[in-house]
């Protein structure tokens, strides 16, 4: 069977679901967007117009969940990279909105620039499990207004995979759609192929951001999938038990699902989560903590309970540098999600609580992901894998190297061979120059970035996208 890991029992999932409904009914959420409030009121919700607080009855939530699609495909510019959800394996997405980069040339941490967004996309293009590209840093060398559009355009120009980003203002939506249209040719294709999706963060506890909600609601008109990311921090922006913090995060997610389904019935949504705990000494959000991993794992289960595609934050660390802490925390925050069968994990490539990107780490994370997926695939106990005849024919004292089954198995998914981890003998390893996972990853980064751009856009499409970028620079403030 597949190897599984779950944080919640079926009974506990139902309890938390009911807790979240109780929160939505008795506490409500703050939604500072008139259009959303009107839709909610028409749907039967009770609105406190002055506070912009909404009590959402459970029937409304049920109705919204009912019409939320259970499956859809995140299209890619290169259809080879299309990602259908639910997925039989756990893919990786880059995590967005860091501020710094560990420069692969100098090894030093510095502020991110737009070229890093381009380079990240190129490295991500070669991450086997990488399916969804969220530009991982916000560059300092471009003005704030057009920054999001420049990031999205740069990602599309440097990677042929599915691109995901935020739409932070209403103005941005048209630009995003124009970019997708430039690539796909028509609005119908944009709606059909879904090569762009947006992340949408609720604001804990139990709030929505005005501009981002307005913009994301508008985006659903094009049936662009929206990844809903609640992120209450246990004890500061959420209650101090993992259990209740999960209930708050889930309530926030359900409120977002309800609003988006009222806005555009049947619009594709992805159940996400980026909740966690904090360091109670300095207030810093902790991503690499085991308590964070437990909550994320639980939220993955909640998403599956609702039958929705799931992309959950994972493979995270609070380490300030690459190395032991980073890798330990990343494995510990990745494995449970993969064993829980979420469709994708977002967090690859970033360290320092998702503030700093490293290309080498992105590749190492890619390998962590493959290892976790092999673990999840488990042990196949089947007639096909029952090699009793080999055992009988070899008998006591022989060996199995000269069996046909062995020869076939070596090239099958029975055995996973890592690319970066070293499995040489000691003397072989010395001869190779004593490589580490980092040095192997670094070599690969250099090779990718010194090589030619893979899957480039046609020159005419690139020209149109560059014009859109110029327009964004001129018009978005």
């Amino acid at each position, binding site marked *: 069977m597949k190897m599984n890991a779950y944080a919640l029992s079926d009974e506990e999932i139902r309890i938390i679901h009911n807790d979240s409904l109780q929160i939505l009914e008795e506490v409500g959420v703050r939604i500072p967007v008139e259009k959303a409030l009107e839709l909610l009121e028409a749907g039967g919700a009770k609105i406190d117009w002055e506070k912009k607080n909404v009590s959402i009855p459970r029937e409304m939530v049920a109705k919204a969940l009912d019409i939320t699609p259970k499956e859809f495909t995140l299209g890619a510019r290169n259809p080879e990279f299309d990602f259908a959800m639910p997925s039989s394996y756990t893919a990786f997405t880059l995590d967005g909105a860091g501020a710094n980069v560990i420069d692969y040339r100098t090894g030093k941490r510095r502020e991110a620039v737009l070229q890093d967004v381009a380079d990240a996309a190129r490295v991500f293009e070669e991450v086997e499990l990488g399916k969804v590209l969220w530009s991982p840093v*916000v560059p300092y060398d471009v003005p*704030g207004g057009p920054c999001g559009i420049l990031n999205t355009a740069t990602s599309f120009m440097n990677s042929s995979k599915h691109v995901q980003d935020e739409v932070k203002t209403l103005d941005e939506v048209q630009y995003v759609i124009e970019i997708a249209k430039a690539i796909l040719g028509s609005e119908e294709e944009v709606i059909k192929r879904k090569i762009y999706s947006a992340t949408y963060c609720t604001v804990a506890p139990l*709030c929505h951001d005005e*501009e981002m909600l307005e913009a994301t609601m508008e985006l659903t008109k094009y049936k662009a999938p929206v990844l809903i990311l609640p992120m209450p*921090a246990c004890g500061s*922006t959420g209650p101090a038990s993992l259990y209740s913090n999960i209930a708050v995060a889930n309530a926030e997610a359900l409120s977002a699902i309800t609003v988006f389904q009222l806005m555009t019935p049947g619009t594709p949504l992805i159940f996400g989560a980026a909740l966690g705990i904090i360091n109670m000494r300095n*207030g810093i959000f902790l991503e690499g903590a085991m308590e964070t991993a437990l909550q994320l794992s639980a939220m993955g289960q909640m998403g599956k309970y609702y039958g929705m595609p799931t992309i959950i934050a994972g493979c995270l660390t609070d380490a300030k540098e690459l190395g032991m802490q980073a890798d330990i925390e990343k494995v510990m925050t990745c494995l449970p999600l993969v064993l829980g069968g979420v469709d994708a994990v977002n967090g690859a490539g970033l360290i320092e609580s998702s503030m700093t990107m490293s290309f080498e780490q992105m590749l190492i994370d890619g390998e962590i992901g493959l290892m976790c997926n092999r673990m999840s695939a488990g042990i196949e106990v089947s007639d096909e894998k029952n090699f009793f005849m080999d055992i009988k024919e070899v008998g006591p004292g022989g060996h199995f190297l000269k069996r046909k089954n062995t020869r076939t198995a070596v090239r099958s998914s029975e055995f996973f061979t890592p690319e970066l981890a070293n499995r040489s003998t000691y003397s072989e390893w010395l001869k190779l120059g004593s490589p580490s996972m980092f040095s192997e990853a670094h070599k690969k980064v250099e090779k990718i970035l010194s090589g030619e751009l893979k899957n480039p856009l046609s020159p005419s499409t690139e020209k149109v996208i560059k014009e859109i970028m110029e327009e964004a620079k001129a018009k978005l403030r």
Partner: protein
Amino acid sequence: MADLYDEMRNSVLEGDEELAIELAEKVLTEKGNAMMAMNEGFLNGIQEAGRLFEEGEYFLPDLIFAADALKSALRVLDSELKKNEGESVKSKKIVLATVQGDIHDIGKTIVGTMMTANGYEVHDLGADVKNEEIIRAVKEIKPEIVGLSALLTTTMEEQKNIITMLEEEGIRNTVKVIVGGAPVNQNWADKIKADGYSDNAISAVKLADELTA
């Protein structure tokens, strides 16, 4: 009286807001010395809380409780204390805000608590505060320091805009500007000509102390 001062000190240290209010009201009804109650009682509590935090005994929630107990006692004794303003040590004022377009509250609130715990008079304007409102507060409150928080890479630009506005209003040199927030760093602070940057609430207090020394 010593016992009463101890009780006041402990009410803050334990973060017992109700008790702090009760003890402060007692000072008023029994015509005690409000200034002494503050200096010998309540303020000792907050100083001890700060010390325990430095030592790792106290956590953020402990400090928030202590700071709120102190604030409540202060509110009760406020008018009485103002009568004696001449003899009081005037506390330094700080205006805090999360910039416009950014509704992330918690980091700034923690800084406010640490500032209160260290004797600053904190004017917390809240989150998503319009730039004009911050300028108005600087004019009206005349703080020694204004602290601007931004959690988003997209809203940190407002920190720069506010500094420009302070310059345009001709009041930039009346106030020290300190900035913070996850994407903010020393480079950014230098670039926008802020007076200081801190990546946590404890060093923010030290920074404020240095800037107003």
